[in-house]
């Protein structure tokens, strides 16, 4: 009963100071809408980084032989019999949402030589059909074509490699690498197509050749060094990694890695950017907290007489403080909901197709092996929204506590001396 009276008093208090309440609420609403927008943009940007990076490397989830990540040596490979089990496990994973594509690869460090020059390269034997669905490099064709089923002595190379080796589509060059038996052997291939990703390491150092050609050349029939798995969303990485680990528990010859383990540089970049965001959001939360604290505190100082009267009428100090606390909470709750909704609607209405930063950044900017797309598409994570709601609730609660404490400790006789 008394709680209901305190709620009524809090509502009336907010209503009586409608202008001040509205101004505070407006500051909070704008702050929260900005927070939602900024978080959605940041998450969208990260998802693009991750998507770009994993599609040019070993996917969201990589299945490899133990030791391959550390050494990159052919001796740490998945043999044919084990590979069949890995493929079965991947194919048993959920597809929608879940596994978007997967591709086996046989990768080795080698040397690409032409009459003009020689350069160290990463040679990847790939399944052309699976790779076309998976890899971003296949979409970055600038000349010729990508590999096709039935190709045998064809290669798909980066534009910088082509320039430095003075190669054009149709030209031949030699790849040299250490085979499984430890011998150094060469493989003659012909340029089928040229790509440009804007990531120099790839444009200058990546060569795709047919998987079967690589297996024969390197003496590893049916084997692969990595089975790269691309998911519909990076958010599914942890659950898919865990499921695959469970499915492949009986296979000692394989290790399942999420992209954070397989691409530690990208992981660090995303984490550093996240810390920057947290700092920005922390500042935003501090501003919101100060707005609440300021509004509620001014309200308390301006209504000392009123709180004194309440106590003279029979309210306890704690109950008086609770009225003030409720006012702060109500202001936070209403502003929180409106701010969240406004942020979501604003972001969705104006930027669902992406925010174009091409005027500010180069169109082909790369970072940590990832191509930065100048158009960032916002992404709403339910988890982020829940975290934001909780954060605002905590900020509002904390910011309302001090004024409530002040109100609860008022001396009613002294408080009633003050003019309203």
């Amino acid at each position, binding site marked *: 009963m008394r709680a209901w*009276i305190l709620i009524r*008093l809090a509502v009336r208090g907010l209503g009586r100071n409608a202008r001040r309440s509205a101004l505070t609420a407006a500051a909070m609403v704008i702050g929260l809408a900005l927070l939602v927008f900024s978080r959605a943009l940041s998450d969208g940007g990260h998802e693009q980084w991750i998507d770009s990076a994993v599609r040019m490397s070993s996917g969201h989830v990589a299945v490899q032989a133990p030791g391959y990540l550390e050494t990159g040596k052919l001796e740490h490979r998945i043999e044919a019999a084990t590979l069949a089990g890995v493929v079965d496990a991947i194919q048993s994973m959920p597809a929608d949402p879940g596994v978007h594509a997967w591709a086996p690869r046989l990768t080795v460090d080698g040397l690409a030589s032409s009459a003009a020059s020689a350069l160290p390269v990463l040679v990847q034997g790939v399944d052309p059909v699976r790779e076309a669905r998976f890899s971003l490099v296949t979409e970055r064709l600038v000349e010729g074509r990508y590999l096709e089923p039935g190709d045998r002595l064809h290669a798909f190379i980066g534009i910088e490699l082509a320039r430095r080796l003075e190669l054009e589509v149709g030209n031949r060059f030699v790849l040299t690498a250490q085979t499984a038996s430890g011998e150094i052997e060469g493989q003659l291939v012909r340029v089928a197509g040229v790509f440009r990703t804007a990531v120099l390491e790839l444009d200058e150092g990546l060569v795709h050749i047919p998987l079967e050609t690589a297996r024969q050349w390197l003496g590893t029939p049916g084997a692969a060094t990595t089975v790269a798995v691309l998911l519909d969303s990076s958010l599914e990485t942890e659950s898919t990694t865990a499921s695959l680990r469970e499915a492949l528990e009986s296979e000692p010859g394989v290790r399942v890695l999420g992209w954070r383990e397989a691409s530690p540089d990208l992981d660090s970049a995303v984490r550093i950017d996240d810390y920057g965001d947290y700092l920005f959001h922390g500042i935003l939360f501090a501003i919101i907290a100060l707005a609440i604290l300021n509004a509620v505190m001014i309200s308390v100082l301006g209504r000392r007489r*009123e709180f004194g009267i309440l106590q*003279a*009428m029979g309210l306890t*100090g704690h109950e008086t403080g609770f009225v003030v606390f409720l006012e702060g909470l109500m202001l936070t709750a209403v502003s929180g909901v409106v701010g969240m909704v406004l942020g979501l609607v604003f972001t969705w209405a104006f930027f669902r197709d992406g925010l174009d930063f091409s005027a500010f950044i180069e169109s082909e900017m790369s970072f940590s092996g990832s191509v930065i797309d100048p158009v960032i598409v916002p992404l709403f994570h339910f988890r982020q929204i829940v975290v934001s709601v909780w954060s605002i609730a905590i900020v509002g609660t904390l910011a309302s506590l001090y004024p409530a404490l002040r109100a609860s400790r008022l001396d009613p006789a002294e408080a*009633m001396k003050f003019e309203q």
Partner: protein
Amino acid sequence: MSEIAVRTDDVWKIYPQEPFPVEAVRGLTLTIESGDFVAMAGPSGSGKTTVLNLLGGLTDATRGRIWIGDRELTGMSGKERARLRLERIGFVFQAYNLLPVLTALENAEFTLLLRGVPAAERHAKVLELFHEIGLEGLADRHPGKLSGGQQQRVAVARAVVGDPALVLADEPTANLDSGTSASLLDTMERLNREHGTTFVFSTHDPRVMERARRLITLVDGRIEADDRRAPARA
């Protein structure tokens, strides 16, 4: 023998100010009987308001003991004092001190609301009282829409509606013209007479002093005179 409404024993109130502490009340020993109509007079700074605040449990005595009825106020927790104020004490202030966010009816019924009295009973009681003291038709007005006299009547209604044992009124006529003051005093006298409510006023107003059945004069925080007499107009 009459029941005791208020009793104090050597009560002091000292404000710890720099450079010297201020002794607002010095050794107040006093007994007020139930149903009395008492005025406390004295010059500004004589401690009248402080005495009322002490009797109402709105401020702590530095030393000494205070009883309201049979319950000792000194030594009570804040919660116990709030409970005592709610159940036994009504206040009327010089500046009316109505809650601006509530209507006249809501202000007057506030103590009943806190006591958990059902809405219908509260409204009936307040409206009857409003009728009795000339506030008909003003129940839904907020304090800002009422004259000073009307606001003070609402404050009186709020003080007496819960049938408290004691009403403490701090210069209740100070902001009112003579006609309104006389009318308000009539109202309080009638409530005192008909309901047996004990009234203790602090006042500068000779008209209040004339009506009091007991006049206590305070000077420098001490009782200088305590005059029990028949009021000029009963």
